[in-house]
């Protein structure tokens, strides 16, 4: 284990491990570009699939955690009556790209503590023709006050500024980011639910329509509608039900890290990675695949650095050394990631977790990473002003890992 240096904020602690609780029943409600259905419909479809996948009855679900932006004016409580579920544990996690990791952490502890036996974790959102534009101006007070009036480029403009800065500081090139995007597209071609079903060439990536310098079209995710979900239950219960499951080796979560950095080139993982690997008892080199939160390729590079796969600023060099495909070196985003599978609102915060569970329970829809035993799923999100505030990660393993 590398020494990451000491910081009073760096997580140490000795939180209880997760050996008695597991993740099972990974489900996806296939993505569509636009839907006339509400977010409620996608939550309902996800819950229905969870029951079918697990063989449980609705009455067996006694905990519900929902991540969604588009339920308004409802929150998770409205869904209990809407869907006719009676639960004793309820959570609403509208944290975008971090909602999967956060929901997971809370659900694990609830089951571990006996507050609930089976928690359905669902990330779901719909996408109407104009809903993305409308959501931009109401995303946060700071966005409304200090971002939206400046060109209204939404996250594209914000990440253009971060990407431009990263490229200048660390020598990354458009070709570097392109390599990640092209590799993820290759991965997506093996995943039936991916929104993009055509191969992407580096030339197409480089020559795509400019969006906000240096970002072009294929640096940007496609907003769509869809849902992801999984169940959290005790290992005992999963085994009794005969459900394949993935174990959770460790997790971390951090909000508003490094507020004094003038611009974001690192996330909260820097504070938490020592704890993350320490609690899991593994090294970065033990990880077989990584599901980054890839809202823009620059974020994948920052996560690779911050989670210890290389030093800060070595990202470009790291990219040039690896293929990132499922069957190559350093597989990332094995179902295509958001860049190729699509970004279904808060479901995007679940995409990597659900894909990881599939990889580690041999229930692959996408191409399997050969011999994968440990996966790292990353959460990142909520760019309320100039940077993403939430960061989180989970190391998952096979049942026997």
């Amino acid at each position, binding site marked *: 284990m590398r020494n990451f240096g000491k910081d009073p904020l760096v997580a140490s602690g000795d939180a209880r491990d997760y050996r008695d609780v597991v993740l099972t029943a990974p489900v996806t409600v296939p993505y569509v570009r636009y839907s006339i259905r509400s977010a409620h419909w996608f939550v309902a479809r996800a819950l229905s699939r969870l029951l079918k996948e697990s063989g449980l009855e609705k009455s067996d679900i006694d905990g519900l955690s929902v991540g969604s932006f588009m339920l308004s004016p409802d929150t998770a409580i409205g869904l209990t009556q809407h869907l006719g579920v009676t639960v004793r544990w309820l959570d609403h996690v509208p944290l975008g790209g971090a909602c999967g990791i956060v929901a997971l952490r809370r659900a694990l502890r609830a089951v571990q503590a006996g507050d609930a036996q089976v928690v359905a974790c669902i990330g779901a959102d719909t996408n109407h023709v104009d809903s*993305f*534009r409308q959501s*931009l*101006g109401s995303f946060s*007070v*700071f966005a*409304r*006050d*200090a*971002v*939206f*009036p*400046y*060109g*209204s*480029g*939404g996250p*594209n*403009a*914000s990440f*253009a*500024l*971060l990407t*431009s*800065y990263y490229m*200048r500081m660390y020598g990354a090139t458009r070709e570097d980011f392109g390599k990640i995007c092209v590799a993820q597209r290759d991965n997506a071609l093996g995943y039936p639910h991916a929104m993009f079903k055509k191969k992407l060439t580096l030339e197409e990536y480089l020559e795509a*329509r*400019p*969006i*906000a*310098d*240096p*970002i072009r079209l294929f640096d940007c995710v496609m907003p769509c509608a869809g849902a992801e979900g999984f169940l959290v239950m005790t290992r005992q219960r999963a085994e009794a039900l005969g459900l394949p499951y993935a174990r959770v080796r460790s997790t971390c979560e951090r909000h508003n890290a490094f*507020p004094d950095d*003038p*611009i974001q080139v690192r996330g909260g993982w820097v504070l938490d990675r020592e704890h993350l690997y320490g609690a899991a008892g593994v090294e970065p080199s033990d990880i077989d695949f990584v599901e980054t939160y890839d809202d823009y390729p620059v974020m994948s590079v920052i996560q690779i650095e911050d989670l210890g796969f290389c030093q800060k600023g070595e990202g470009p060099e790291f990219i040039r050394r690896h293929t990132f495909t499922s069957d190559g070196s350093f597989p990332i985003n094995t179902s295509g990631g958001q860049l190729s599978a699509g970004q279904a609102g808060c479901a995007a915060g679940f995409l990597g977790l659900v894909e990881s569970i599939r990889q580690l329970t041999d229930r692959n829809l996408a191409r399997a990473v050969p011999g994968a035993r440990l996966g790292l799923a990353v959460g990142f999100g909520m760019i309320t*002003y*100039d940077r993403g505030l939430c960061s989180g990660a989970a190391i998952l393993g096979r049942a026997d890992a």
Partner: protein
Amino acid sequence: MIAPLHRPKRKNPILRTRLPLLPPWARSRAALGLTAAAALGRFELQVCAHCGSVQYPPREACHRCLSDQLQWREQSGAGELISSTTVYHSHDLFFRERVPWRLGLVRLDAGPTVIAHLHAGCAPAPCRVRVETRLDKSGQGVLLAFPIDEVSNMADDLQLREMTCDPKFRKVLVTDGKTAVGQAVVQALVAAGADLVWVGYAEPWKKFPGLAQIEALPQVTLIPLDLTDSRSVTQIAAEIGGRVDILINTAEVHRTHGIASRSGVEVARAEMDVNYFGLLRLAQEFGPAMRGRGADGQSSATAWVNLLSIYALNNYPPHGTFSASKAAALSLSQCLRAEMRSGGVRVINVFPGPIDDEWNQMLPPPKLGPDALAKALVKALKDGVEDIYPGDVAQEWFARWREDPKILEREVSA
């Protein structure tokens, strides 16, 4: 390099006039502090009275010590442009029509990192810049990063011009050219590059000094315009209303009476008829057409300027009825401002102290010369601010009024 603005071609009459759109307008109450300062041409940020931290974006509590004693304080705006981008695609209709649009992240020397519109004269990051506030087309305060050193054609930057009301190549109506102030304004507009200046004059049989010199300017067209006559205003609006880019209402009646020094209401009524109802008549007749032309090409309709008085803020009893009429006009101008906002047309209020004219004969100096007033007015157009208080007396009154209007009332009534 910024390409200099060229005189626009004549409008093609078979093409539809582009309708005005506004950039996003919604703001939190805290953020409106930025707008309030921008309206005066100041760049202010919240500074914590307890720990001194500078905050941005605006907040309800200090992000360091949680104090709620956040005070808006003027900033130098100096900072480092740490990243810049050019946006080619926007989700907003206003910006869709205006991309490419430059943005930057600026680390202010005062602490915070701000997202700012980026003037074309700024080099790519990294470089030193100076952040200022401007009012955008929606009338809200925004941040704009300028190059440290003046570059040529600075005012012609297209992004900046969306936030200013520069008279260059624009057509202007000055409603009263009889007065020294009106004539000085006309001269200043011509010097600032106005394309055409219509100059109104009422009661043409009265001979006014200086009008002949104004009329001799090639840019000037004299028009009979009497703000007390609804039909006259309607007539002139019908003739030129669809072409006026900037309207400057310099017409006023100023008599020097309080309540007791003059029996009857005829003088007060005459003041109200021009100072208040005149503005109302103009607003009804010229407002809608100007509002509809807020995005009509390079030289769109852009501003409406009211010559008010510092006495609009607090009554000056020796000029009591005049003060009241200007207070009424100020109130109406706020209504006009709200109604013109949808067209992106700025309403600028000018609050001079005593002007050096016959009706302030008995007031001691300092008094504001017509040329100085005109200069301040044209600068307000170029800066795109909303309220100006030209001259020492106005500045002093305004400072006293800001500090405590009741104290000013007592001071003035002494």
